[in-house]
């Protein structure tokens, strides 16, 4: 597998619900990609990942490549689906995001 390139975020699934979560700058797990801490230095991200991997509140933490221009966006389509939700029903994260925009 090709070596991962920064910028990256740390993502995982929530232990209780399985929901996709991202590590934020305050070392909390957020369901929102835009809240994620973006690492421009890979070594720093790997160090942080080693620390948080054993945290009991999440499962399967790993680094995901993002673009960090006007907003944080996934660079691979797999991460886009994790970020948005499935394409056959509008009831994954996209439903929550939509509700937040409407509110």
């Amino acid at each position: 597998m090709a070596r991962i390139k920064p910028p990256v975020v740390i993502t995982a699934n929530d232990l209780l619900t399985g929901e996709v979560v991202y590590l934020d700058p305050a070392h909390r797990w957020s369901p929102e990609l835009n809240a994620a801490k973006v690492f421009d230095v890979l070594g720093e991200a790997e160090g942080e990942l080693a620390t948080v991997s054993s945290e009991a509140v999440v499962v399967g933490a790993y680094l995901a490549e993002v673009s960090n221009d006007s907003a944080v966006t996934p660079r691979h389509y797999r991460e886009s689906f994790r970020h948005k939700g499935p394409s056959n029903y509008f009831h994954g994260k996209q439903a929550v995001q939509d509700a937040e925009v409407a509110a």
Partner: protein
Amino acid sequence: MYNYQEFDRAFVRARVDQYRDQVQRRLDGALTEDEFKPLRLMNGVYLQLHAYMLRIAIPYGTLSSPQMRQLAYIADKWDKGYGHFTTRQNIQFNWPRLVDTPEILDALADVDMHAIQTSGNTIRNVTTDQFAGAALDEVADPRPYAELIRQWSTDHPEFQFLPRKFKIAITGAVEDRAVIRAHDIGLQLIEDEGRIAFRVFVGGGLGRTPIIGQELVDRLPAEDLLPYLEAVLSVYNLAGRRDNKYKARIKITVGAMGIESFRARVEEAFQRLRAVFNGQDLAVLGDIQKNFAPPQFVEKSQESYFDALDSDSGFREWVERNVSPHKHPSYASVTISLKGHGDTPGDATSDQMRAIADLAERFGHDELRISHEQNIVLPHVAQADLPAIYRTLKSIGLATANIGLISDIIACPGMDYCALATARSIPIAQDIALRYARLEAEIGRMQIKISGCINACGHHHVGHVGILGLDKAGVENYQITLGGSAGNDAAIGEKMGRGFNVDELMPALDRLIDAYLALRLHEGEIFAETVKRLGTAPFQEALYVVDQAA
């Protein structure tokens, strides 16, 4: 269908209690994820892309109306109001919370269901013909044998940690509707000089190394079934590779050993094990068979049925496509399509589940089946009741008359849900179904099967047209295979060439179908027959004509 005994109920409840404790210890931090993962998997709980997924066993695809209603209840209470029926005749819920899974398993136990051995390197749910016990072409009902295998393999201490997962399929009909030769073991019930026997196939499988199973024995007396299966499993358990999960399935073991050597080792083990089985298995089989007596068929006036055939073209088309002959002359089996054009293959809402349960209760002797093609079957209905069934299905959006047609697509969950997937399957299936909805009757029988990764849960290798979704340098890419077959002439499709990106795929399929319509001898020659007659070359040319022009 099989009725649970007190032993079964106590066993399932004990497993739920054990699992509840395991979940609690995980939440308390007493178990790490590495320790917990194999425990949750033993109870069907996976972690997928967006959420946990619970895979529930539907033994040999058979369930009752109360069980279907309970699945609807679970969908509403703990999921998002729908369930996904799978190619292994099971159901999956895509959104349960881990903390709720013990309660869900309790709710399943209330109706004699569970999720045991729906994951892990164990013997999985035995699959069979969705028309078992009803089909006109049936030699013998495979369900009692499937149930015997279920009881033997559930929590079998020797086979809880096999080199890899193990799938058994069984058919009792002349036409193989269970894809038996694409399973680790495939069983075909036959009549041998007035007695029931089995043809046994071994080493079939799809995935990254697709292989059609080879015949291991041509007539195994039915009474030897369990000792023979135990012999096969014990040889595999010892000889199967555990150093490389991609080479751990029995198909690799058989290939490496050679079928003759494998057969000799099985025969040796069989002779030893046959003496150990003291007839208890046959006594259990006898008890099981009492559960599978045919229903009390009722003779009804068929006047309204024939009237509807004459007056309602939609009904007539639905009967032609979705109704299969039954061994009782005034009965039929109904396949309820879960492939409405643009819908997700295999999905049913909780309302639909309840309506189908009501239909089974009212018209279908309380029995339902799940087909490996991801549809739902009412196996025993009086022809006289078909108009009423059709009307109800139409009212809930489930009267699509497309069984066996291009929109009756098998598709795995793909990257919309599955953590292993490399591309999406569902939107491709939806696009194909919508694109050819008006043309599908003219195209005729055509099986498209779509997998979102090389693991081939969508059976693409045995599709007339197989579509495999891959990740090509960060872009979804779809490879096409042609010439596969899931039936008696089981065959692995041939890869046609480079894959297509999403925007190239539909035009390529258009060219493929245009070529078929131009090349078929007559309307009755189905796509698979044209491919068999001409080979894949003209279709390959049609697929890649754009490349040649460039």
